[in-house]
């Protein structure tokens, strides 16, 4: 019985993230439009786009290989699994022990790996631009992310997200400089990873500035739908990661009652809304930077992460 309940909770979480991902994207777009005094697309527009794309037929470039067709599913699977492992409304989910934060990052890395390959597969120059810039960004973002993980892991004494969330939620960590640095770094990484302004612009097709869009240029129909969905999942993942680590309140403890779970869901939605709003505000208030400024941006994140870790190491010994 307990097992079934656990499974149910796990399944619920997976479905939840799947369901919420487009909504979050739509919400961010809406808020941005509002801030720009525009009507903006309806909140549910992303769902419509996905549905339409799914119904369309795929137009495949002649030079595309089997890898090109397999990639969307691989990317989706990797991202979805990663997203499902991040505690949203409850910790200690059934499968959460099968992977810690490092694994989650690695899964995202896997998704990016195949996305970059897909960009190269057709053999167009734009795909090349996209992939090469993507890996350049990733080569700085990933270490930064790992540094953040180190910091948090040293605070919580674990790389297990549930444990971390629990520890940070208990307030035992207290306020720490390195935590602040880690938060800033994490936000910067999240922005870069999700191809948001100022690193990349999800809404542009101006070839010289785009990164993510350039890679998926050749995709169409259901493939494109999956790619977009995984991108939205990724955004959701980062948001819920930030919220479960730095706003760790109201998350249901393992084996909690249904009521606690419901509270968890409610607070989770609230956090999403908050983060989405902040993101929108940030994006509207800043300009896109040139591609070769990005390394400096991410380098700063890396340095922050390293600094946080070092501080951690030192302070732990005192």
């Amino acid at each position, binding site marked *: 019985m307990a097992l079934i309940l656990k499974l149910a909770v796990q399944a619920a979480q997976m479905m939840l993230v799947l369901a919420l991902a487009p909504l979050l994207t739509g919400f961010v777009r809406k808020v941005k439009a509002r801030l720009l005094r525009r009507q903006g697309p309806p909140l549910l527009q992303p769902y419509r786009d996905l549905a339409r794309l*799914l*119904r369309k*037929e*795929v*137009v*495949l*470039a*002649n*030079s*595309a*290989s*089997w*890898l090109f067709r397999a990639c969307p*599913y*691989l990317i989706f*699977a990797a991202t979805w699994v990663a997203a499902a492992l991040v505690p949203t409304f409850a910790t200690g989910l059934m499968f959460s*022990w*099968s*992977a*810690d934060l*490092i*694994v989650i990052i*690695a*899964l995202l*890395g*896997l998704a990016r*790996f195949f996305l970059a390959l897909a960009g*190269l*597969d*057709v*053999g167009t*120059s*734009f795909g*090349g631009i996209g*992939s*090469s810039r993507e890996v*350049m960004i*990733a*080569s700085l973002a*990933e*270490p930064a992310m*790992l540094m953040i993980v*180190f910091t948090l*892991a*040293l605070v919580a004494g*674990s*790389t*297990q997200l549930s*444990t971390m969330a629990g520890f940070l939620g208990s307030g035992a960590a207290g306020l720490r400089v390195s935590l602040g640095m880690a938060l800033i770094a994490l936000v910067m990484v999240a922005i870069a990873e999700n191809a948001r302004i100022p690193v990349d612009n999800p809404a542009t*097709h101006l070839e010289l500035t785009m990164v993510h869009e350039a890679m998926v240029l*050749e995709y169409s*129909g*259901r493939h494109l*739908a*999956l790619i977009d969905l995984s991108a939205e999942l990724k955004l959701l993942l980062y948001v819920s990661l930030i919220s479960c680590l730095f706003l760790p309140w109201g998350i249901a403890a393992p084996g909690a009652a249904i009521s606690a779970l419901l509270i968890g869901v409610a607070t989770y939605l609230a956090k999403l809304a908050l983060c989405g709003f902040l993101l929108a505000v940030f994006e509207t208030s800043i300009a896109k930077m040139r*591609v070769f400024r990005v390394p400096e941006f991410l380098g700063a994140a*890396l340095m922050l992460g*390293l600094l946080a870790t070092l501080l951690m*190491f030192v302070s732990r*010994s005192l």
Partner: protein
Amino acid sequence: MALSIILASSAAFLVLSALAILLHAQPLARIVVYGGSLILAGAGLAAALSALIARAAPETSILPVGLPWLGAHFRLDTLSAFFLVVVDLGAAAASLFALGYGRSEIAPQRVLPFYPLFLAGMTLVVIADDAFTFLFTWEFMSLSSWALVMAHDHVRENLRAGYVYLVMASMGTFALLLALGLLAGPDGAYAFSAIRDSHPSSAPAALVLVLVLIGTGSKAGLVPLHAWLPLAHPAAPSQVSGLLSGVMTKVAVYAFVRIVFDLMGDPAWWWSMVVLALAGITCVMGVLYALMQHDLKRLLAYHTVENIGIIFIGLGLALAFETHGLGWAAALAFTAALLHVFNHSLFKNLLFLGSGAVLGATHERDMEHLGGLIHPMPLTAFTFLVGCVAISALPPLNGFVSEWLTFQAILQSPQLPSWGLKFLVPAVGALLALSAALAAACFVKAFGVTFLGRPRTEAARRAHETDTFSLAAMFALAGLCLLAGILPGFFIDALAPIAKAMVGDSMPLQRDVPYLSIVPIAEARSSYNGLLVFLFMLFSGFAAAAAIHRLASNKLRRGPAWDCGYPDPSPLTQYTASSFAQPIRRVFGTLVFRARERVEMPPPGDAAPARLVVRLSDVIWDTLYAPIARAVEYVADRLNRLQSLSIRHYLSFVFAALVGLLLVLAIWP
């Protein structure tokens, strides 16, 4: 029993090479040599595995050869057994591959006799149990591999590669010779057992450590002693490159572990500092060099340097923890290192064999001339992709597991009291993370440019799938990569006795952990279940596919690439390897390689294309090796004046010597 099987197999290897010389260049020779090597390696593998899994007590045997009053000591303990598994697994795969690939060999008479010798050398190094036998087999291994590197000596740079390799190998051997000589003491107690019993005082121990680092580092490819590696590994025939890169470097790791962890007694705390610093630099330098390459095999060779760095990070951490009495953490780091040894031998072999298949199909190593090979050779492409994912340390394959364990070990380092390590370890962690990310980038480039896109040359267009033997070898390795990735627990348990023997503690037994997941220290701290993640992804991927194909459209139409509407007829407009690496070169290259980009514009009216010329300078070569070479040249020139003097001058030398010695006598007390 196991030991005698292994000794017999290495003897049989020697017989094989004799046969190869007798049969000369006939096709039969190929089958005999590679088939025989396959069988022998299989036998050795079985024996070593049985010894490793049965956790048998060390076996020893003494043959009446080598140093007359000592004899050749051989010993098979779990450490040797593990490295024997690595050696023989690689050997078996390479031999299987070569059964088919050897057909396209242009100079078989240069390869066949030395191939079994090389295998024999590696096998014997791992079980040697006295200083003389160890160095004898060690240098024998270098020498036979040198002959293999020189196999295609009509190519100029192969000559240079062989030369640099041989000189650096001899340097390494001399360093080890000095180290072991120091350990053995003036009256030559060369048996390892004797060395174990005598604990060297600290001052020589420091010297020994440095010498051992030079000796094994120069063979394993620690920066800055890696210079020969990217020259020699690509020069050899591909199956040998795989062995050189995937296996021989591991033999060097074995030597390091054997001497530093086993023979040298208790380590001093600063040893780990040296090792860690070197290893961190090695990681990043290796992968950065690799990113700048566009020769497929050289790129792979540089990646070996990076992975050696990762392995040595693990070993350094193990040293650090051991000195501070954190046995469990030491065991974690040590196991991580050994697991990475195993994993790297798997996928590096796989990748080199894949590059061999590409070479055989297109006669091209330069990625700029390849592309689109996934269409003519899909199976090779698939296995190569598996290798790429594995070496990029991405789940659910094996490369990730060992790096994950290494990260876990790094996370234990706040326990270390000493301040130097407190600052060094996080920095090393950052370097490790950086190199992991860069490795992924590098293999996107390697696979993407070689196999994806459209063929850039006629050679690539005319490529064809490789033969069955080669495919069998590559698929076997790929399967092992997956297996080691999703069921790491068994492999970790197999390593437990070694850690116990070397650092005095071992990781918790993974067999008892539910659901086959692995737990380095405690479940609350960290755990990873490769199997579950793999099934999870498999399930969701196929679920999505099924759902979409059932519920939504599954229609598909082929058409020209869209590419923002730009018509793009020529495959030359694709991103090349160097253009792919350009952003990263901008970020790191200018710093590390003094990379200079220059645009050569043709004069107005000239139809010639504008070119972007990139000049990279190998910092380490310029600052370390070139000066040494110049110094030797200088001294040689100076001394050479003594070659042509008149007899009177020579007589005056004699006279001077005589008077000098008489003066010595005169002032002798």
